[in-house]
């Protein structure tokens, strides 16, 4: 009876999850064919976690893309073409991301996609977009393998030419963090924890290697499960290790609990994490325990960029939910890159919009040639599809807010 009930539990839950996934919006309107003289509506797909884990930063991606589309429509950037967003929720689950990718490529009005947030989700989508020759630009994926292949450390090879990103890689991020921890903070004994996900484990590994290379000592390592709530045992281990810094590779959901339980247990060492933890939710949840904690984030602070001022004002004025701080501006630039590519494809076709099956590969080619000033600086891509903008910023929690403490370019020396 008991075993049977567990089997049933699992199968019903799976069915439920699949049903929910299948309920994505299916309003195909417009279509790819250009009616004579009328405006055609093209769709830009967005895939990110919009509910549950990571949803605050995920919503920032959705609305960042939304604002880019609104701006393009308002300025009539591509004459005769209007854009709209089709946002799908991947719940930070690779399987859901894959089915969303299939949905987007199957929709004949979708010209390209922005997203996802999680590197692990991206891995399951690459093949789908590649097969459909549809461009995918992630504003947030930082795992090096996505653009540079499995053996990125020794032999860089681009696996999919349809995949681009406006964020930089963990190779740079992890190294930058290690350098700041060792030389900037003068911390010599780090405890390294990750969440075993593609992003978190990759980042923690790079930090671990670079930190040791610089002369720091890694006094302990551990892994957690996403969704864990009680870190009492881990905290006691960290306390016992006498570490003076905790490096965490993972998302804010677990990081905020770890830092709180760590400080509550009287271990007053800062938690240092990557861009997955760069969220105001982290500070709201951890409260005073977050004080002094650090993250690295890609790019330069959004509010110091003159071009981003209007973006932030618009985001706030429209009352959008979520966190634009981490990836909102990158989603904006990713979306704009797709819109510009559509424009270039239209221009090259004597001002007419090509058929969708011709348009998609052309957009991929045009995105590769992107070169424009975005909100986050110059937007262009190298031969692997990585952004050429390699700036990183260290933020620290000060009086309940993220304050930029250092901006620079990672040096891999």
């Amino acid at each position: 009876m008991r075993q049977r009930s567990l089997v049933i539990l699992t199968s019903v839950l799976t069915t439920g999850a699949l049903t929910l996934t299948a309920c994505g919006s299916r309003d195909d309107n417009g279509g790819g064919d250009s009616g004579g003289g009328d405006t055609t509506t093209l769709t830009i797909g967005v895939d990110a976690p919009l509910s549950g884990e990571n949803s605050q930063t995920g919503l920032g991606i959705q609305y960042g893309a939304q604002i880019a589309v609104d701006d393009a429509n308002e300025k009539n950037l591509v004459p005769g073409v209007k854009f709209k967003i089709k946002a799908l929720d991947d719940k930070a689950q690779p399987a859901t991301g894959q089915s969303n990718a299939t949905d987007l490529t199957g929709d004949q009005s979708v010209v390209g996609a922005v997203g996802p947030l999680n590197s692990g989700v991206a891995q399951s989508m690459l093949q789908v977009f590649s097969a459909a020759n549809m461009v995918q630009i992630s504003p947030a994926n930082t795992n090096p393998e996505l653009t540079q292949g499995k053996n990125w450390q020794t032999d860089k090879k681009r696996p999919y030419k349809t995949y681009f990103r406006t964020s930089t890689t963990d190779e740079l991020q992890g190294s930058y963090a290690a350098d700041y921890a060792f030389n900037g903070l003068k911390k010599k004994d780090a405890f390294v924890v990750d969440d075993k996900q593609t992003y978190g484990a990759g980042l923690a590994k790079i930090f671990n290697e670079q930190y040791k290379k610089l002369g720091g000592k890694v006094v302990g390592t551990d892994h957690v499960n996403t969704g864990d709530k009680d870190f009492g045992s881990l905290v006691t281990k960290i306390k016992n290790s006498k570490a003076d810094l905790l490096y965490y590779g993972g998302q804010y959901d677990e990081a905020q609990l770890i830092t709180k339980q760590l400080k509550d247990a009287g271990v007053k060492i800062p938690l240092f994490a990557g861009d997955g933890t760069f969220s105001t939710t982290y500070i709201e949840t951890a409260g005073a325990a977050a004080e002094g904690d650090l993250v690295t984030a890609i790019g330069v602070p959004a509010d110091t960029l003159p071009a981003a001022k209007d973006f932030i004002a618009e985001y706030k004025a429209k009352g959008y939910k979520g966190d634009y701080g981490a990836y909102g501006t990158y989603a904006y630039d990713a979306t704009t890159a797709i819109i510009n590519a559509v424009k270039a494809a239209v221009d090259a076709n004597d001002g007419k919009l090509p058929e969708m099956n011709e348009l998609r590969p052309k957009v991929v080619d045009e995105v590769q040639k992107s070169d424009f000033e975005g909100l986050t600086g110059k937007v262009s891509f190298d031969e692997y599809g990585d952004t050429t903008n390699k700036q990183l910023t260290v933020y620290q929690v000060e009086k309940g807010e993220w304050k930029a403490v250092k901006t620079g370019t990672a040096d891999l020396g």
Partner: protein
Amino acid sequence: MNTLPQQLANGLLLGSMYGLIAIGYTMVYGIVQLINFAHGEIFMTGAFGALTVYFYILPDGTSMAIAVPLMLLGGAIVAILIAVGAERFAYRPLRGAPRLAPLITAIGLSLALQEVVRNFYPEADGARPFPGLDTTHDIGSITIKDADIFLIVAAILCMSALAWFVRKSRTGRAMQATAQDPDTAQLMGIDTNRIIVIAFAIGGFFAAVAAVAYGLKYGNVDYRMGFLMGLKAFTAAVLGGIGNIYGAMLGGIVLGIAETLASAYIDEIPGMQQLGGQSWANVWAFCLLILVLLVRPQGLLGERVADRA
């Protein structure tokens, strides 16, 4: 530094929480032989009930000494209403139906409750901050905080009260009778429907106590918190012997301590580094369950029919 006392304390605290939730599974199973898989979600709604009291009813800046009992009250009211409502409207119509029907109803109810909270509670998409009791105390080499003391005291009080209630009170004895043989109990003049409602209500109350302790300890609550906690508590109930209220508490504590010690020390055993650490805690917990069930299929304390309630 010797970390064993601290790790044991961590495990005991976690286990007490499992135990409090496990009471709900075990009471209901003992009386109607139903595994109420929605119980994890009753725990979750208890937390949101307490959160509602704190954020939307009490004035800002209420001292925690006043707020905590009121939050407990609010959480208990919500959890009991939902537990009793589930019994009345979801399970009672299915009494006498094949066993699978109420089980699937329970799973459906569990999903429904999650989605209702996610969609209709303000900002419940992600985790919502919960007021904490974070003042810490050092006792020897152990550091605990006020929320931990609340949890331990609440667990001891609730368990003692329940033990007294089941053994001594008239209703408690009626519960034992119903657990032993519902038909005969009914013939003896016991209103079994009332007894079943009371079992659900007690389970809901214990879940609410655990939920408030959870919020105070971890500082946030979310709509999915009931799933894993519910599954662990169910494991604890099975480990201790489902149907037995002392077994639920013991099972919870054993499970909590086993998980904590496994994640703390297994990786120090030579050759076992890969199998230790926080991420393997659940694996070891379920290994323990399998081992115990192999040796004692009835659970640690077994189903002592006389005390079953």
